């Protein structure tokens, strides 16, 4: 009888190597598949009504609540269907289901097992998304762009839902002349800002309350400045103050969800976009109040002697290219699912009000005399205090949060001598350098320019925004000289232009351009990528400085695609972005300008487009210095942002943020080209240096923004880990970190309650009819 050879036993371990390799490959594939089934799924889950039935009969169902619920028996179907109508299980208005571990893959697989009571894989991704489109929040993307959708207010026409949840038997906020009452979990937002040098420290306090007779979870989506470094979070329950902790985003969500399920009062702050955040507060008992305090730092913009402080108050609706389903749809209240997008924002109609108001006060401690202040969009009161500080306060008559608060103030010119701020702590040195241009440059020979105007003609620009933009372009055309060239490009559903190539700015061509400009209207979609391509995809004229001017409100959902295209196609062009409207997408505008080594300007509805264009044109036709180089005088600098130094224009400083080691030198020299000549600026740091404790957070925020920008074109590099660690080190909010706070001392009774989302107003000046899908 033959025996197993001895060498077979020796070879057995070697046999494991290919098995390991196969296992690793299969593991990777299994983890990345969106359709991976989970063995921990409860037996009773998975039977859903079809999307139409669910949408018609159940407005409040929330996928997150469903998966988070711990109270429902596993054996029952979560949505018993009676007579083809979806019925809620009494006592669990937010949906029932056995507890599941909160995991993106689990969520997808569970919802995938649905559709008319059948189980199994969804055959195609489109089919999945179509089914999930009816369940807002049920399809988180890989980067967790969870847009919290405005909860549909109790709609009488739907029937059946009224009387079962927080929409009835509760104290509702009813304002004079208001046709529809809106439940208000967010009563008030208080903003207290303190400005020192050109860094603002802002405390935002959101006051939540439960006006219903049931326990609720309040969810509020709100904007902050796109360069805000959020680094403190405080939850106040009665007299008790609990400071929140920064955690990895997924970990924070798990902590929050576990606390919510167990009945603890908990709060979670997450970042959806660099300028959009979501605040959740769980287990607010009837009649109770909970305050959330958020603190952040950010640098102020400076333009021609004016500093600008912005507190954004409203999230603008976004446009999504046809065929895309991962964007953000703008829909009317109760019109969930109409946009076909995976996530949607519901906007109040013009006759609806949420009752939420804002109080705001800004204290300016510039260190020098403030000559003038100007509130651009709001009525505000200004006074001086006994410490010679300027205090600007929002008037009570203008406290509706439907437009950004923009405060500009001018300081005495001859006192500006502090251009370098530094800060040292246990982690090292941080600096911010502001380079001011010389004041006398108008004697320089004007350089010929090639001006490319790119006008957004989408629906959201309809009305006043596009008229403003057109007036600015018109002024620009009339300011051109015969040796300049220009082009006009419009984009909405697609792009078109005045001619095949830029034309000489002769009188006849300028007239033709004005006529073409007059014919443009604001309607259709926002295919901004077409505008980008049309503006940058043709040869550069070596004899002229090319400036590409984008006039847009930036209401799009594919920002990364836009920024990636600019990075790839920029070449020798300089991008100037003009944000138009009361609440433009400042994140996009600023990123475009930074990537394009240009600058950004904002035209609010009250600004004069022609005046803004005058200032812009004067600046670009007389650049103070190009091709900047900096001699740091022995200071060992690193991690300096922006990496590509922008040009220096009259009245507009260059701001750099970075790290340093060693001593601060007595002089820093900045050199560059000014036309045919070389120029140099010397910064004497002995009388130009100061310190600010917020610089570390500001620098970290700047670096995170740079990493995020880099991700748009550096697709081979995994930057998420870098961002996460940086944010944790500096206690900062980011897309990969979040703040969480839990009151573990007490537990509330009953189920985890209903999720109530704070309604969002359409930005002032944006036409509801052309922007929101009903």
């Amino acid at each position, binding site marked *: 009888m033959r025996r197993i050879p001895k060498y077979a036993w020796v070879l057995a371990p070697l046999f494991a190597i290919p098995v390991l390799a196969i*296992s*690793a490959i*299969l593991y990777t*594939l299994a983890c990345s598949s969106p359709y991976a089934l989970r063995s921990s799924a409860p037996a009773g889950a998975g039977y859903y009504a079809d999307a139409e039935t669910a949408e018609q009969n159940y407005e409040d169902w929330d996928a997150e609540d469903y998966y988070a619920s711990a109270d429902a028996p596993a054996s029952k179907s979560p949505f018993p269907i009676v007579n083809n109508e979806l019925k809620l299980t009494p006592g669990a208005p937010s949906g029932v289901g056995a*507890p599941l*571990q909160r995991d993106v893959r689990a969520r997808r697989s569970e919802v995938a097992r649905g559709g008319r009571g059948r189980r199994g894989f969804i055959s195609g991704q489109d089919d999945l998304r179509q089914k999930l489109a009816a369940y807002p929040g049920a399809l988180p993307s890989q980067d967790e762009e969870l847009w919290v959708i405005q909860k549909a207010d109790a709609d009488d026409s739907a029937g059946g839902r009224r009387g079962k949840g927080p929409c009835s038997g509760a104290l509702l906020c009813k304002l004079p002349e208001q046709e529809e009452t809106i439940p208000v979990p967010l009563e008030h937002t208080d903003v207290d800002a303190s400005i020192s040098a050109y860094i603002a420290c802002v405390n935002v306090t959101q006051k939540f309350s439960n006006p219903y007779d049931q326990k609720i979870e309040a969810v509020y989506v709100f904007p902050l400045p796109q360069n805000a470094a959020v680094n403190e979070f405080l939850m106040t329950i009665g007299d008790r103050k609990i400071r929140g902790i920064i955690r990895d985003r997924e970990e924070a969500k798990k902590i929050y969800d576990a606390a919510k399920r*167990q009945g603890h009062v908990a709060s979670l702050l997450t970042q959806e976009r660099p300028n959009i955040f979501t605040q959740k507060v769980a287990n607010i008992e009837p009649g109770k109040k909970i305050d959330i305090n958020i603190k952040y730092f950010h640098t102020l913009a400076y333009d021609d002697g004016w500093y600008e402080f912005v507190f954004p108050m409203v999230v603008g609706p976004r446009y999504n290219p046809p065929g895309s389903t991962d964007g953000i749809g703008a829909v009317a209240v109760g019109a969930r699912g109409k946009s076909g997008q995976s996530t949607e924002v519901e906007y109040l109609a013009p006759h609806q009000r949420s009752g939420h108001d804002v109080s705001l006060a800004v204290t300016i401690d510039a260190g020098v005399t403030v000559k003038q202040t100007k509130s651009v969009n709001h009525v505000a009161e200004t006074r001086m205090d006994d410490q010679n500080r300027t205090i600007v306060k929002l008037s009570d008559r203008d406290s509706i949060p439907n437009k950004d608060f923009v405060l500009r103030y001018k300081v005495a010119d001859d006192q500006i001598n502090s251009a370098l701020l530094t800060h040292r702590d246990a982690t090292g040195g941080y600096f911010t350098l502001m380079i001011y241009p010389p004041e006398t440059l108008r004697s320089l020979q004007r350089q010929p320019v090639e001006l490319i105007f790119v006008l957004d003609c989408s629906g959201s620009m309809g009305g006043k925004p596009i008229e403003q933009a057109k007036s600015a372009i018109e002024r620009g055309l009339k300011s051109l000289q015969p040796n300049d060239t220009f082009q006009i490009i419009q984009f909405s559903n697609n792009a078109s232009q005045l001619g095949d190539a830029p034309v000489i700015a002769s009188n006849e061509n300028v007239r033709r351009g004005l006529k073409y400009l007059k014919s443009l209207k604001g309607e259709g979609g926002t295919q901004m990528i077409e505008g980008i391509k049309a503006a940058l995809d043709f040869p550069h004229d070596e004899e002229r400085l090319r400036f590409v001017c984008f006039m847009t409100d930036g209401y799009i959902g594919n920002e990364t695609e836009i920024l990636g295209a600019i990075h790839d196609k920029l070449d020798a062009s300089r991008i100037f972005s003009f944000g138009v409207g009361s609440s433009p997408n400042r994140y996009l505008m600023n990123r475009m300008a930074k990537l394009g080594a240009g600058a950004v300007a904002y035209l609010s509805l009250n600004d004069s487009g022609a005046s803004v264009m005058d200032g812009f044109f004067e600046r670009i036709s007389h650049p103070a210095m190009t091709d900047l180089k900096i001699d740091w005088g022995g200071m060992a600098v690193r991690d300096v942002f922006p990496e590509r130094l922008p040009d220096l224009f009259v009245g507009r400083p260059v701001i750099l943020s970075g790290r340093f080691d060693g001593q601060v030198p007595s002089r820093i020299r900045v050199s560059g080209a000014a036309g045919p000549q070389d120029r140099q600026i010397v910064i004497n740091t002995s009388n130009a240096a100061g310190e600010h404790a917020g610089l570390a957070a500001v620098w970290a925020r700047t670096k995170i923004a740079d990493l995020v920008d880099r991700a748009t074109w550096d697709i081979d590099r995994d930057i998420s880990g870098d961002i996460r660690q940086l944010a944790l080190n500096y206690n900062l909010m980011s897309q990969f970190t979040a703040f969480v706070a*839990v009151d*573990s001392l007490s537990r509330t009774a009953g189920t985890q309650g209903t999720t109530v989302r704070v309604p969002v107003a359409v930005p002032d000046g944006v036409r509801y009819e052309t922007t929101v899908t009903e």
Partner: protein
Amino acid sequence: MRTLIAITLALALSTALVRAQTPDTKTVDTDVRFVAYDVFIDAGADALAAYQIEISDLSGRAKIVGVEGGETTAFDAPPYYDPKALNGEGRIILGAFTTEEDGPTGRTRVARLHMQIEGEPAVDFDVQLVVAADSNARDIDANVTLIEGKQ
């Protein structure tokens, strides 16, 4: 031989799927609980004006999810602490002071830590009182205790 290869491939596939199904973290939601720990300092007859304590989690199962102040107005604000504490570091340093003339005497709750605890067994903490001082910044005899708060 073919059978052997087939069995091995099946084993590898099942291993991969099981690993993919395995939670990324070691904790499932049902295994965590939230507990408040009260920090008491007994300063005896002296009035406590400033303190600094260091708490170490010996079990490695505690994560801090909130820091709350104490019971008296002197220490009602959340104490100072390093945000990186108890997030992989396993310890936290708390510090606070009051400039009120009369700080609390006797046994006082000066802070409360909200924690997420993995698993059922109680967590073992090591607590050290680094600083305890009166209103004149003089060291005082005091002791510190950490007690699980009652819900």
